[in-house]
């Protein structure tokens, strides 16, 4: 075991080791108000002043949605390698691991939500913008296969800038790989609920983020295929104000419901209950 792994292991405990929490005050990125961390945390990382939804890392997200101590992680050991020999990729992976304190950009496992057993995955925005490389694709595929084998529902929390460029076509083809596993899970009559968080874009938006039986989103989350800057640049067109925001995407017909953070756990539990799970 190298030092980096030791470091990661020591810092990967779910509670209390976040440097964010050791800082006593933070400023909201939207309203600029100085907020005590305890207050932000109590409010589920939603700014108590302006209501801005802050980024939640994968492990905390799972804690917020599942019953205390019910989560068992799967495939935690999987780590990316520089399959194409892409310039600077190793350094970026190391930096991402340090920033996110995760080995890769998604955390997968089994848990209960108000007693209902399910598989759950949560992507991590701090790991190279939640980009999907081979390991992210593999972990999510394995989770769907695990769930299919046991007749379990899957709850997925997405946040992603899309496929990871540094792994080239290996990344792009993860979209196909995961989609096929979602299909098999669905064919076997299993439930898949996806919660889209800010931002869910690119190759993730064009695959498993849009393949749920039930599609939920957080308020204000950006959801779309192409980045807004790409569209603005290529079309020289001003974009509608709420373009690609969850509320707009819902009115366009692509989301079932927008669920505030403090209601998500109960909402998911209700859905599981209504499916007899």
């Amino acid at each position, binding site marked *: 075991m190298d030092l980096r792994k030791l470091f990661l292991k020591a810092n990967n405990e779910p509670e209390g080791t976040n440097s964010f929490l050791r800082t006593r005050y933070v400023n909201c990125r939207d309203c600029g108000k100085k907020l005590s961390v305890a207050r932000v945390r109590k409010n589920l990382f939603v700014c108590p002043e302006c209501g801005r939804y802050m980024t939640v890392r994968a492990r905390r997200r799972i804690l917020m949605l599942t019953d205390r101590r019910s989560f068992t992680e799967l495939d935690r050991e999987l780590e990316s390698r520089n399959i*194409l020999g892409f310039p600077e990729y190793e350094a970026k992976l190391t930096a991402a691991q340090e920033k996110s304190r995760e080995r890769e950009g998604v955390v997968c496992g089994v848990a209960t939500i108000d007693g209902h057993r399910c598989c759950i995955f949560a992507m991590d925005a701090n790991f190279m913008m939640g980009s999907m490389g*081979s390991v992210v694709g593999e972990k999510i595929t394995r989770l769907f296969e695990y769930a299919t084998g046991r007749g379990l529902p899957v709850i997925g929390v997405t946040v992603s800038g899309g496929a990871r460029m540094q792994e080239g076509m290996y*990344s*792009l083809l993860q979209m*196909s790989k995961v989609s096929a596993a*979602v299909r098999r899970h669905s064919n076997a009559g299993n439930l898949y609920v996806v919660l889209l968080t800010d931002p869910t874009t690119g190759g993730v938006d064009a695959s498993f983020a849009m*393949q749920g039986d039930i599609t939920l989103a957080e308020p204000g989350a950006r*959801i779309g295929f*192409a980045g807004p800057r790409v569209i603005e640049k290529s079309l020289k067109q001003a974009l509608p104000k709420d*373009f690609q925001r969850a509320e707009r995407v819902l009115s366009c017909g692509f989301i079932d419901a927008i669920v505030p953070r403090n209601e998500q756990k109960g909402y998911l539990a209700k859905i599981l209950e209504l499916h007899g799970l």
Partner: protein
Amino acid sequence: MEDYEIVLGARGDRRLTATDYIQRMVPDFIEFHGDRLYGDDRAVIAGIGSVAGVPVTVIGIEKGKTTAERIRRNFGSAHPEGYRKSLRLMKQAAKFHRPVLCIVDTAGAFCGVDAEEHGQGRAIADNLFEMADLATPILSLIIGEGGSGGALALCHSDRIWMMEDAYFSVVSPESCANILWKSTEKAAEAAKSLGLTAAKLHKAGLIDRVCRNDERKKLAADIAEELTRLAELPMPELLEGRYRRFRRVGY
């Protein structure tokens, strides 16, 4: 040839487009229009015909040749309506036990307000989801540009073939260089790093065959033979093979 030259060549003005391939390989082609939901996307040509005597459903992304036609074809960048038309006809193909041939040539799915609000991501996701167990053989041939998700949406297939001078990439080399190194001038370096040429992808086992330009006359016969061979497989075996084809990628 340098990898970036292949990318530039694949975008070349004088290159054969999907229509050329269809005219040569599917002489009795009949085109069908519309997604039955909203519209008809002219960037996607779809219909039926026969390839070397084998009836097939053909889906092609067409860029156009003249300026007027390119505009009409939206430069080969499909809207969600195009992907939905392709899916409609693929499902019809399965109903009539007809194999599907996809001819892919696109810089990428269209990026625009309408495309987004009509569900570009959803449309591509639906193709991947449905093609995963579409009960008929599917062969995709990339003839020029295989641009990211917009190309992938027609490549969840039993076989992916590429012309020797085509490319297939997660991102355009220019965008990649711009995002990573804030400079489009490093596009050539990005192209090389992305491993996007037919030869490299074949070596990595990500595509199944590299087709030579000087053997293009044989292409229709080769495709018909491959589709016939796939059609003879029991359906569970065909679909298990398709699942494994993508399952093994990357890890």
